[in-house]
């Protein structure tokens, strides 16, 4: 089992290189789409199998190259613990739906093999981010995923997409630079790049009186949290998202909103706050502030939108705010003098479950908006109408997505929001609980509006045909996940969310840090 973990990153990258060669061989250039879909499917199966096989035992520490110095393993460590496995499943699930959807959606673009190669590179890089236990290695793979997404956002090379991609590139470089400055300062303080050993080093660091941490650690934390908040499109830094996501091709905006801002942003924030910097009230309050700001501002901006994809992009910011808020409150509860593990566990369960659900229904909504845009040729809500009858499959999937993001009971959105709201109440934060409920209601209104204008009402356009079958299959996969997510919550909790939550909970106790691969 241990040897298979690096394959999750090795296969997509190797295949991406292969695709560029195959594309220039006369007969094989049509194979690239099939090859890419096969690789993503294999990754998903590998991820699910690892979740089932490793859900009880401790995560095996895999060192790239098995080098050792003075008896201790050195080099880069691949960590395949609960949190990493959850993220691998989420990434490859949305990637599979997007790549199947892209089979027919990308027919309107030229040189599609470029798309398949960049798509595999982005997915492989995100697997690399999630699996790496080494801070600099995580930075390199965040950079690979980001540069791949700059290219993919500008895939249509039209004036509006180029301008959005350039602004996204500029802010991405700014964020990456601050992340690297943070890593440099942490390396100078601890001498290690491995997250577990770095955490030990930071704990042993002498603190000046008065401050909770030395100025250097605060500087590093500010740079890292700032850079990652920008990658996760939290509100003060969200300017790039409402331009970049709508102008990207639909499968790419589904991947960006559904997974990239989580794998490169929210996941990295959780890893660094819980594991490297250690849980303390300062960072927890920063996370809570970011979460609340994103939820509220994202929702209000989304309510006023009439462009379907921009509305979905703003609503991604607000839903990502939910997850960060849940993680922040969990960190705050854990940093109290007697850390209340039960409530923190519930907060983490809610946050991670919402991360899983948001990837599913936001990906579904972006895919259906792409299908609608291809059929009707417009993204404006006012120019659509009555699509439920004209495009049954897309209409049904869009309704499933809209209902589950709005939090209507049988679907998965409802359960994760309820768990977060209950956890906030138990953690003794009534104001946050009220804000969470308010944003949930706002989201409900927003998606009633979407359903009203897109699905119901008199059909405004005549010649609207249902999209070809690959797009239907892509959307169906995520629709099934939305429905099953709510009903099959117990097995999901036992195999996916509990091991992931345990990783973050244990990171507080010293024992947890040792289990994460830091040899004594």
């Amino acid at each position, binding site marked *: 089992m241990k040897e298979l973990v690096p394959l999750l990153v*090795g296969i997509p990258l*190797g295949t991406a*290189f292969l695709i*560029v*060669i195959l594309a*220039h061989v006369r007969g094989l250039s049509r194979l690239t789409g099939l090859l890419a879909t096969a690789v993503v499917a294999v990754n998903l199966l590998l991820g699910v199998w690892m979740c089932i096989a490793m859900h009880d035992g401790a995560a095996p520490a895999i060192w*790239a*190259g*098995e080098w050792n110095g003075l008896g201790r393993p050195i080099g880069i460590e691949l960590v395949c613990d609960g949190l990493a496995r959850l993220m691998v499943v989420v990434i490859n699930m949305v990637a599979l739906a997007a790549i199947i959807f892209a089979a027919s959606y990308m027919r309107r673009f030229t040189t599609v093999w470029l798309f398949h190669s960049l798509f595999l590179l982005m997915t492989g890089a995100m697997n690399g981010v999630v699996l790496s236990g080494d801070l600099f290695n995580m930075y390199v793979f965040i950079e690979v995923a980001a540069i791949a997404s700059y290219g993919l956002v500008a895939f249509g090379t039209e*004036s509006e997409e180029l301008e959005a991609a350039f602004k996204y590139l500029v802010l991405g470089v700014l964020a990456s630079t601050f992340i690297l400055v943070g890593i440099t300062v942490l390396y100078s303080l601890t001498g290690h790049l491995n997250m577990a050993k770095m955490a030990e080093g930071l704990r042993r660091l002498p603190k000046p009186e008065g401050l909770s941490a030395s100025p250097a650690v605060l500087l590093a934390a500010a740079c890292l949290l700032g850079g990652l908040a920008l990658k996760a499109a939290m509100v003060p830094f969200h300017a790039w998202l409402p331009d970049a996501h709508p102008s990207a091709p639909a499968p790419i905006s589904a991947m960006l909103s559904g997974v990239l801002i989580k794998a490169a942003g929210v996941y990295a924030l959780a890893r660094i706050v819980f594991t490297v910097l250690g849980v303390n009230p300062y960072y927890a309050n920063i996370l809570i502030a970011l979460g609340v700001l994103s939820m509220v501002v994202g929702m209000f901006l989304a309510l006023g939108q009439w462009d379907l994809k921009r509305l979905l992009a703003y609503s991604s910011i607000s839903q990502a705010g939910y997850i960060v808020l849940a993680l922040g409150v969990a960190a705050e509860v854990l940093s109290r003098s007697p850390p209340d593990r039960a409530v923190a566990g519930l907060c983490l369960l809610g946050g991670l479950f919402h991360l899983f659900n948001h990837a599913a229904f936001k990906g579904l909504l972006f895919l259906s908006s792409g299908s609608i845009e291809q059929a009707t040729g417009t993204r404006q809500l006012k120019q659509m109408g009555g699509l439920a009858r004209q495009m049954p499959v897309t209409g049904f999937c869009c309704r499933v997505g809209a209902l589950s993001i709005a939090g209507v009971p049988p679907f998965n959105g409802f359960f994760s929001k309820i768990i977060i709201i209950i956890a906030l109440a138990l953690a003794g934060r009534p104001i946050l609980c009220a804000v969470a409920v308010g944003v949930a209601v706002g989201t409900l209104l927003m998606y009633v509006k979407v359903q009203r204008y897109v699905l119901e009402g008199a059909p405004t356009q005549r010649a609207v045909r249902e999209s070809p079958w690959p797009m239907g299959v892509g959307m169906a996969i995520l629709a099934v996940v939305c429905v099953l997510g709510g009903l099959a919550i117990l097995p999901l909790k036992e195999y996916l969310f509990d091991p992931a939550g345990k990783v973050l909970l244990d990171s507080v106790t010293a024992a947890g840090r040792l289990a994460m691969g830091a040899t004594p």
Partner: protein
Amino acid sequence: MKGMTLIVRNVAGLISGFVMMYGLYVVATGHLAPGGGFAGGVIIMAGVVMLVLAFGGDRAKALLDEKRCHVIDASGALVFAVVALLGLFLGGFFKNFLPVGKVHEFFSGGTILISNVAIGVKVAAGLVGIFLALIVATRQVMPKE
């Protein structure tokens, strides 16, 4: 895209051979002296681009158009990925499976030499490709939107 004056063309013709040879040297002795795959690749690219700029893009197109750059670039990357994955089956991921020779010998680095050459080829071909694309792109008039 027309080339430059006669003097520049002659000088470039003379020099670019040596530049590329020096680039190969830097790639090959990566594990003994400063330099290595990336720096050597960039030097080789500088040699090729000097030729392209001096003799004009059209003649360069015949010799090394973007398609061939793609293939060489991707094959260099593939060799590097295969070296990594091959290590996987003979022990750990990225294991240096070749015997490690005496320190200052040429063949002392095991897979380091192969990786260096793979990266050198990859960087050189890729950057030449992107440079050709940038030069050609700046010449033609885009259809105004």
